[in-house]
């Protein structure tokens, strides 16, 4: 028993190191590719403040904020998915499918609509307020779904169906409001419906970073609770966990992570669904492993998707959410076929 535990720890550290390596490699690849290429050597030189003014501009003002945002959003959505799947005991749960992302997106659009009128003039103050608006929307959505799915308790199947319905409803409101603001621009609407890193700058990084840095460690500290809840309510009660309180606390963390991520990245679907499955495949169901792994896999996956979206059909930029959907929908279908 002891040796199995040690083996698992070793494997965990090895995968973690591998993921770090992949992220760093992908990071350099991602930074150096684009309409204007910068050689990896130049990237390092520029990062060490020794690049040309042009390289510095491209790197620090355009590419880095987008990449850092992709890493943060990917991590946030993935961990949110981990928590949601554990507490609903539903392997097909995800902030996107359940409608939490769309709720957060709607709140952000309403916030912009009522306080500024358009997307271009987003001030520093309002950027820092956006995650809070998104959080309110996400909490509202989660609450609505929970209430609507309640019928002598919440059954996981009903939860998913209600989530799909609520998602469609928020989507319709989004379309209406979006077109009120800018009747022609469907591309903006796609930010909130499918997800796009729509305003890549350092202010947004600053607004999102504290949420990720605080909430993911909290989630990790509750790994034991997640393990227990994942086993089912009866067992959790038997093991002395106050199920409802623990679940509500964790739900709040998941919703906050999703909300903050949506404020910066729109309604990216499927990422929070697929990543936890990959993590579980790699190292089994224990959340003290799944959460760190999912953080890194989510970050990596979104950075890769972002790079693909920016370069595959350049100069056409594909919104990152669309790339994620195309990459992960087949995996979702595979999970669906396998599920009972």
């Amino acid at each position, binding site marked *: 028993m002891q040796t199995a535990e040690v083996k698992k720890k070793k494997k965990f550290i090895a995968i973690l190191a591998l993921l770090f390596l992949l992220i760093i490699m992908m990071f350099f690849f991602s930074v150096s590719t684009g309409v204007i290429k910068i050689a990896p050597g130049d990237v390092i030189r520029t990062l060490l403040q020794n690049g040309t003014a042009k390289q510095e501009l491209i790197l620090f003002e355009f590419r880095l904020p987008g990449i850092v945002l992709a890493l943060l959003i990917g991590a946030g959505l993935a961990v949110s998915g981990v928590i949601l799947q554990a507490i609903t005991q539903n392997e*097909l749960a995800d902030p996107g*499918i359940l409608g939490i992302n769309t709720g957060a997106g709607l709140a952000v659009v309403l916030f912009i609509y009522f306080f500024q009128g358009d997307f271009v003039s987003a001030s520093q103050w309002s950027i820092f307020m956006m995650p809070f608006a998104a959080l309110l929307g996400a909490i509202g959505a989660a609450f609505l779904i929970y209430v*609507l*799915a309640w*019928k002598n308790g919440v*059954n996981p*199947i*009903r939860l*998913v*169906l*209600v989530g*799909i*319905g*609520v998602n*469609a*409803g928020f*989507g*319709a*409101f989004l*379309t*209406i409001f979006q*077109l*009120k603001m800018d*009747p*022609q621009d*469907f*591309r903006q*609407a*796609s930010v909130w419906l*499918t997800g796009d890193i729509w305003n890549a700058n350092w202010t947004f990084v600053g607004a999102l970073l504290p949420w990720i840095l605080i909430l993911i460690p909290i989630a990790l500290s509750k790994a034991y609770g997640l393990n227990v809840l994942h086993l089912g309510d009866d067992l959790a009660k038997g093991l002395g966990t106050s199920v409802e309180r623990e679940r509500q606390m964790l739900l709040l963390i998941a919703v906050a992570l999703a909300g903050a991520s949506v404020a910066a990245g729109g309604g990216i*679907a*499927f990422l929070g669904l697929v990543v936890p499955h990959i993590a579980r495949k790699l190292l089994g169901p224990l959340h003290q492993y799944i959460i760190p792994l999912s953080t890194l896999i989510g970050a990596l996956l979104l950075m890769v998707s972002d790079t693909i979206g920016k370069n595959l*059909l350049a100069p*056409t*930029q*594909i*919104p990152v959410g*669309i*790339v994620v*959907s*195309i990459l992960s*929908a*087949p995996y*979702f*279908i595979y999970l*669906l*076929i*396998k*599920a*009972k």
Partner: protein
Amino acid sequence: MLSFMNHSSPLKIILNVAAMILLLLFIGVSVSYGTTNIHFATVWQAIFHFNPNLTSHQVIQELRLPRAFSAALVGAFLAVSGAIMQGMTRNPLASPSIMGVTDGAAFALVMMLAFFPHLPGAGLTVSSFIGAGLAVALIFTIGAFSKGGLTPVKLALAGVAIGTMLRSITSVTAFHFNLEKELGFWIAGGLDGSSWAHVKLLLISGIIGFLVAVFISKSITVLSLGEDMAIGLGQNNLMIKALGVFSILILTGAAVSVAGAVGFVGLIVPHITRFIMGTDYRWIIPSSAIFGALLLVVADIVSRLINAPFETPVGAITSLIGVPFFLYLARGSGGGK
């Protein structure tokens, strides 16, 4: 299925006739309401004593009448498609938009516009039939491979997955070929820009699809009681299902090629008509057509009212009406167990 009256034919006929009159009335409202309101009397004259020198008559003949007729036909087609799907699969959530069929048709349309921009209108319509067929084929493949078949929740999730994937590929193509405006139109759904050519196209495909639907309606009733029962009664289920799918593809494909992905009409209307008309699909299919037409004509009027002078996509309106209904179904039979 509960029915609110027990199969008294005269009452059903009266209800259908009433819905028909209401439909004509709302078509009248739809034609007279717009950026410039036109009096009912003028509408009447424009139709029966057309005078090409009057602008109002021109507007009615060239813009508003085709639009109102398109709305009615598209609504009818989607509702009939939904009724056939629900009858054949005995699945309360089956409908063109939930199953991603509308997304499939839009996918094929954008692909054709991107790669064969000079395709004539008929080619576009045929491609939307094929796109709708692609989505249906994908859903049934998922159903065939999955353990326990397509339960309502699996059907809904498979529809979400297929729909999202097709829509994503559609978006990428549209962004690359600068078809964003067309994309927005097809994803959100809309009836502005409907012309007599569209009405003609709808009528031709509609007559074929609808006749097939009526022809198999009795067999669908039997099928809706259970597959074993149908076999026991000596019915060729495969043949009926093939004809049903054919009818769905024609009706949904034609509807999407004219109005884009208008959601939820095919979900709600069959449930309402089943509630009123009972379980006999010989009644359900024709009255679904009438009620579907009524719903979409009204939704189209609302879509012009809500943010005038701009138009709101009619698909957003039908979603707002449809979502509470979907939730009701999800809480009841769909999500039960």
